[in-house]
């Protein structure tokens, strides 16, 4: 036991607090009433005007905090944290064809980013080729179009995959994109043990947020688990999944819901992998996470800290993991896209900086900062560079990275960390009672919760109970200034034409017999319920396109159609 405060000390503090509340505060309040009747976090957690040791009455330091790099990791997963190595500055990027994106990646590397992260266009995200009718008008718009191995080679032209790590935000077609990546690495002569990066590959959150689902829930989870199982056995440095709260949050969830639903997704995956016969300590160190960092500063920091502690408990106590690395919650953060607005858009630079600061104070392993022009379009080079430089200012100028978990011990932050945890456990218990997250998703439970929260937030903004500068306070009507924001310009029609042409050329030039055999073998494996990864890799090397591979899998697994309402 390592109780922070003695009974005597607490009594004295409490006496002083009551004295203040009864004798000093009322005069002040009568002269200067508070700005609001109630103050709440974005999750709706009421916060008091002042926190003292009395709010951490039975606080056990070792149980709740400990030291960095040791269980329960509240203070950080590494003993040295940012004093030794800063978080990875990993800018989510991609637009147009592979040529445009290759240029952008090289620009960002030159500007000092330390990890790559690929944004794909919608056709790639749902696994259709650029000449599919569904892709019309969408090729290269919100990310890069990568339908074949040939395209992936161009994306990484002059970039050595043995020297960088790459995140790929890709879900149902994760086996295809991972195979593209592995095949490019092979061509570059990079061995499997040097291939590092992440596939998002998180199917459950697709049904709650993001919504780039393709397969029905059961099959979607099966495919994702195939990727994890194969990666764990073949790519020792790969993070085969990034269990993502980000999209759940962006879809309208509160911070508490984001925390709870993300961990509940993780719990489901751990169970699925154990059911496949994998040893928990074999795969757990390769699981990674991805959270949002929204604008309510302390709540976000508390969320990150609570997440680490909760996941450590879950892995150690629920699943009996033995390796300390299995208890780590390693996470990427993206600042909140949904907190950015088109009104006075340069204010988004400030929002992003504050959100990034919360992520760093929360101990993230890697970070993407949004560009201020993102309410309009994929970022311009200018805007992307400001976003990256924002991280560099936090890292190199502010000094916040020089002390590990510097907000620990703040009465308020520790109280809020506990409160977030408590509220999240309640959600997790509810999901457990529904049979786990896969079942809960099939029943529409998290979907309904998130929809409710999104609507509640909107009402609060409409009714002036939440303030957004430039939107419902300090509005300006000057659109001319906004019009002058230089946006990314590229010829989308030309990109679409080029991508269609290339995919047709790839189809016409490949070894027909080898291609057909590879797809037939993939179909057989999917029908048998085998791990599809080796077969997808084989098909990719035979120059099967993303649309063809996903087509075979859709034939076998079916396609999910979301009901308009839950």
């Amino acid at each position: 036991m390592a109780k922070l405060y003695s009974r005597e000390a607490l009594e004295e503090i409490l006496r002083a607090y009551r004295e203040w509340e009864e004798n000093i505060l009322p005069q002040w309040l009568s002269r200067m009433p508070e700005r609001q009747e109630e103050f709440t976090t974005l999750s709706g957690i009421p916060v008091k005007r002042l926190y003292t040791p009395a709010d951490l009455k039975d606080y056990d330091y070792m149980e709740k905090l400990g030291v960095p790099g040791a269980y329960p990791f509240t203070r950080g997963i590494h003993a040295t944290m940012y004093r030794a190595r800063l978080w990875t500055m990993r800018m989510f990027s991609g637009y147009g064809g592979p040529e445009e994106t290759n240029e952008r990646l090289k620009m960002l590397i030159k500007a000092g980013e330390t990890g790559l992260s690929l944004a794909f266009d919608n056709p790639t995200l749902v696994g259709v080729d650029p000449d599919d009718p569904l892709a019309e008008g969408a090729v290269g718009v919100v990310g890069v179009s990568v339908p074949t191995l040939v395209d992936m080679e161009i994306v990484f032209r002059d970039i050595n995959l043995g020297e960088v790590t790459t995140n790929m935000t890709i879900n149902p077609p994760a086996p295809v994109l991972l195979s593209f990546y592995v095949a490019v690495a092979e061509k570059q002569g990079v061995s499997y043990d040097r291939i590092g990066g992440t596939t998002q590959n998180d199917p459950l959150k697709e049904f709650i947020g993001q919504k780039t689902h393709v397969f029905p829930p059961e099959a979607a989870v099966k495919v994702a688990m195939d990727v994890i199982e194969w990666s764990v056995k073949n790519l020792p440095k790969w993070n085969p999944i990034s269990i993502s709260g980000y999209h759940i949050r962006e879809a309208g969830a509160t911070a508490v819901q984001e925390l709870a639903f993300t961990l509940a997704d993780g719990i489901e995956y751990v169970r699925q992998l154990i059911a496949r016969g994998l040893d928990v300590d074999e795969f757990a160190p390769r699981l990674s996470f991805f959270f949002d960092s929204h604008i309510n500063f302390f709540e976000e920091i508390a969320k990150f800290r609570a997440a680490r502690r909760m996941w450590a408990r879950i892995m150690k106590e629920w699943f009996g993991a033995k390796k300390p690395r299995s208890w780590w919650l390693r996470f990427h953060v993206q600042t909140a896209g949904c907190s950015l607005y088109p009104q006075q858009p340069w204010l988004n630079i400030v929002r992003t900086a504050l959100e990034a600061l919360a992520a760093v104070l929360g101990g993230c392993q890697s970070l993407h900062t949004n560009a201020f022009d993102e309410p309009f379009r994929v970022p311009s080079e200018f805007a992307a560079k400001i976003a990256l430089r924002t991280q560099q200012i936090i890292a190199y100028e502010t000094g916040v990275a020089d002390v590990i978990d510097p907000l620990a011990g703040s009465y308020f932050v520790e109280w809020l960390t506990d409160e977030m945890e408590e509220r999240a456990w309640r959600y997790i218990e509810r999901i457990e009672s529904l049979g786990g997250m896969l079942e809960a998703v099939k029943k529409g439970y998290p979907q309904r919760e998130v929809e409710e929260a999104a609507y509640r937030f909107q009402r609060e903004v409409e009714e002036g109970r939440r303030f957004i500068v430039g939107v419902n306070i300090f509005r300006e009507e000057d659109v001319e200034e906004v019009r002058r924001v230089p946006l990314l310009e590229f010829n989308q029609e030309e990109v679409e034409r080029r991508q269609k042409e290339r995919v047709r050329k790839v189809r016409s030039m490949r070894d027909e017999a080898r291609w057909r055999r590879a797809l037939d073998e993939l179909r057989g494996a999917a029908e048998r319920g085998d791990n599809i990864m080796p077969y997808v890799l084989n098909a990719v090397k035979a120059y099967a396109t993303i649309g063809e591979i996903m087509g075979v899998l859709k034939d076998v697994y079916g396609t999910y159609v979301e009901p308009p309402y839950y």
Partner: protein
Amino acid sequence: MSMELTLSRPTTRRKVKVLVAKIGLDGHDRGAKVIARALRDAGFEVVYTGLRQTVDQVVAAAIQEDVDIIGVNQHEGSHVYIARKLLEKLREYGADDIPVVMGGSIPVVDLDVLKNIGVREVFLPGTPINEIVDKLLRIAEERRSRREV
């Protein structure tokens, strides 16, 4: 406790009916769902298409449901392309008297482009719902009075 909003003229007392549509592969449905619900709370009759609709499906639904307005929510940059296609299709089916409005992540420079194509209103994120409600009521009323003539 939603307020029932009906048009002022006795001949057009039917609730204003809006089709909220998601066209193409864009999965960002938060705005569409929030606006669908807010309009319903404001007394509109709302039909939400769900995700990944084609232009043909949306036009068919609009005609079949006899809506007063089509509202398209678009967050992935294809708004100009989709607006063009949608308005073309409406003309093809002789349904181009159904006004189209849009909302979502749309660059300010595209507002004029969309209006020139024939999109009646574009609502950017942050637009107060009351403002959207007022504009939709006005648009629906105009159309109904035109129809009576």
